[in-house]
């Protein structure tokens, strides 16, 4: 009887250590995660329907007009300083033949047109979302953000923050193997999806 009790005690005593071991593994894993990174909730879903005006032409457009696929949808505004920082890279991408659709988020259309006139227009189309309702449907929470739409019109990736070469080659090469220079980029192992 005594022996059994001692062996019970034996196993039980190690439970706290085991629990702590699991906790350490979790915390170690946590160090390489980013708690602020928020993947797009719409990932895998079709780009939401909308009816908005196009920035330059003033025509009414909808999802169907985002016809080039795969494409980027870039959320930007003139009040967003970081958008200005990423703008040259967007021009490079456009030059390399990557279709970019703009979502002018909570902005003044006239200012936006002037801005593009001054800095260059990389966008195939620019959606005017003055109240941010399309942004809300997408799950936008700040500018700049860049979404990737695949061949079937589904949202497959979102990058929050400034888009630049490193990020592009790391995360976007699955859909845009030709990269910003129009040159075939070496395929990255396991594209980091969000």
């Amino acid at each position, binding site marked *: 009887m005594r022996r059994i009790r001692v062996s019970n005690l034996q196993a039980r005593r190690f439970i*706290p250590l085991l629990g702590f071991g699991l906790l350490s593994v979790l915390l170690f894993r946590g160090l*390489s995660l980013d708690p602020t990174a928020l*993947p797009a909730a719409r990932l895998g879903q079709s780009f939401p329907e909308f009816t908005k005006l196009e920035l330059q032409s003033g025509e009414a457009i909808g999802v169907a007009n985002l016809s080039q696929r795969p494409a980027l949808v870039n959320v930007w505004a003139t009040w967003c300083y970081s958008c200005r920082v990423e703008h040259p890279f967007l021009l490079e991408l456009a030059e390399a033949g990557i279709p970019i659709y703009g979502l002018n988020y909570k902005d003044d259309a006239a200012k936006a047109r002037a801005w593009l006139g001054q800095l260059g227009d990389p966008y195939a189309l620019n959606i005017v979302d003055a109240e941010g309702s399309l942004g809300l449907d997408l799950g936008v929470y700040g500018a700049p953000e860049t979404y990737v739409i695949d061949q079937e019109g589904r949202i497959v990736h979102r990058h929050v923050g400034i888009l630049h070469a490193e990020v592009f080659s790391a995360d976007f090469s699955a859909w845009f193997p030709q990269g910003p220079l129009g040159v075939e980029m070496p395929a990255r192992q396991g594209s980091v999806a969000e």
Partner: protein
Amino acid sequence: MIPELGHVALIVAFGLAIGLTLVPFWGSMRANVSAMNLAPSLAVGVLVFTAIAFGLLAISFLRDDFSVAVVAANSNSLLPPLFKFSALWGNHEGSLLLWVLILSGWMTAVAFLSRGLPLVMMARVLSVMGLIAVGFLAFSLLTSNPFERLLPNMPADGSDLNPLLQDPGLIIHPPLLYMGYVGLSVPFAFAIAALIGGRLDASWARWSRPWTNVAWGFLTLGIMLGSWWAYYELGWGGWWFWDPVENASFMPWLMGTALVHSLAVTEKRGVFRSWTVLLAIFAFSLSLLGTFLVRSGVLTSVHAFAADPERGLFILVFLALVVGGSLLLYALRAPTVASRVEYAVISRESLLMVNNLVFTVAATIVLLGTLFPLVMDALSLGKYSVGPPYFNAVFVPLMALLMPFMTLGPVSRWRQDSPRRWLHELLTPAIAVVVLAPVLSVMLFSFNLWVALAVLLAGWVSLGVLRDLWHRLRVGNSAGLQWQRLTPSFLGMTLAHIGFAAVVLGAVVVTQHSEERDLRMAEGDSAELGGYRFEMTRISQQPGPNYIADQASFLVTEGETVIALLTPEKRRYLASGQVMTEAAIDAGMLRDIYIALGEPVGEGAWAVRLQYKPMVRWLWVGAFLIGLGALVTALDRRYRVQSVARQVTDAANQGLEFAG
């Protein structure tokens, strides 16, 4: 020059800490008395040199030496001197230095206030604390050096202390909190020393208790101050947010509460030994875990220091070594310290066992809730958030579950008791409380089920405490009151339990009955809330030492009587450009009136929030009583008076130590 000297002092302290970890411990294993006797001097050495480093950093802050990186990042020439000083610990590097300073203070206190503690035990205790100091000093020197310089590109002025921190709260809250966090290393060290020695008797508990109670008391006060500070500083009248950093301090507190009670049982009855040791390890481990969570960037929090995964890794490794090592030691040595169960199912011991269980479960729940988002993210199951709605939903019932037992506990007998006796003792108070509670809650406010329940439970606890007090005073046949029977230990418990009841009552009342209105008000407008009338009499601009404020004056009246003239402000700090709300509060024990300014909404009008918060002070007064009670218990005679007989026994025990 001064920062370099500070750096050197820190390195010397590190060296001494290494000595403290190794030498006395080796001495304890080899029965080398002179090696063991070095421990107090080494502890003092660590304290002195850490204090020197601390002082030199303070001088750098006060002299506006912006060549020092932390000074440049956290201070400004316009900052009032008191805040320049406290800015020292308003950042990651400096607060680490404070941590180590307080740790070395505790080490020195243990070294010099432990007369009669067997030398072997003291050597081991100080060695363990020295190990902790080594870890933190290494962390500081290797990854977070407070004396890092920005030469040759020294900025002309600093980035200023975050305006939210420019408050007396910053001066007291972190030091008090750290006194608690760090102080839990003392019972931890005692536990480790006991496990190593293989001896864990009632005298071990007696040694640990005052240290534990004082540390826990400080932790209580620190948390209370944090809550109060958030309340008056943030501008929306909240006092607890279940934010990860808050939880990081609350978890050690919960575990510490279990520890405080468990130690009492071990001291008086010699049982719960392995439980108590485990709790001591858990409590300090949670302290260390808190340090990790706050500084590693693993969780998002408004409170967190600038997060750096590299630093996080260092702390994690240290955590793994210390906690893992101590739990391994526990696993291997537990049988040698486990006690026989000698108490009945109905007894004071088992009630306190329930107490242990509830607080341990509570701490685990808070840990689970805090880490849940991390767990889900690590398992790639998505991004989740766990916040106040969850914590309130699970934590409150747990505490409610506990409260009936709080009265039974002091009444019950050790070893064996009977429910019939409880009924006999407590029937009258029980009936009184059940009858009075709904009546009181209706009298004070409109009827609310939760408030009635809270009054019931708080009343039950208070009546039980008072009944206990009365019985103590009137024991035996003597006609008079036996004041001498009110030992500090008993008084402390009484204060703490009443404080707890007050906290519960305050929390429930303020949650259920507070009123709030957001309105647009201009000069001359008035509004009604909670039976008071608020009239905005004037808006003006007021300059401050390092800010400019828009100030609104409110005349608060109740009927014909003028209650207060309140002046909430909206401050714009000159150095950083940051804008901050400074709420105006009329405090009272039965209610707070709280006014905060929002944005100007045009035409000279402002968005204003008026709040009526009944009994919110009871939260902090109650918490203060808990902390005070804990500190009072340490004054008990039995921790100070050493009879000759005891000294002889202890000396004899010393001889026996080496055998084990």
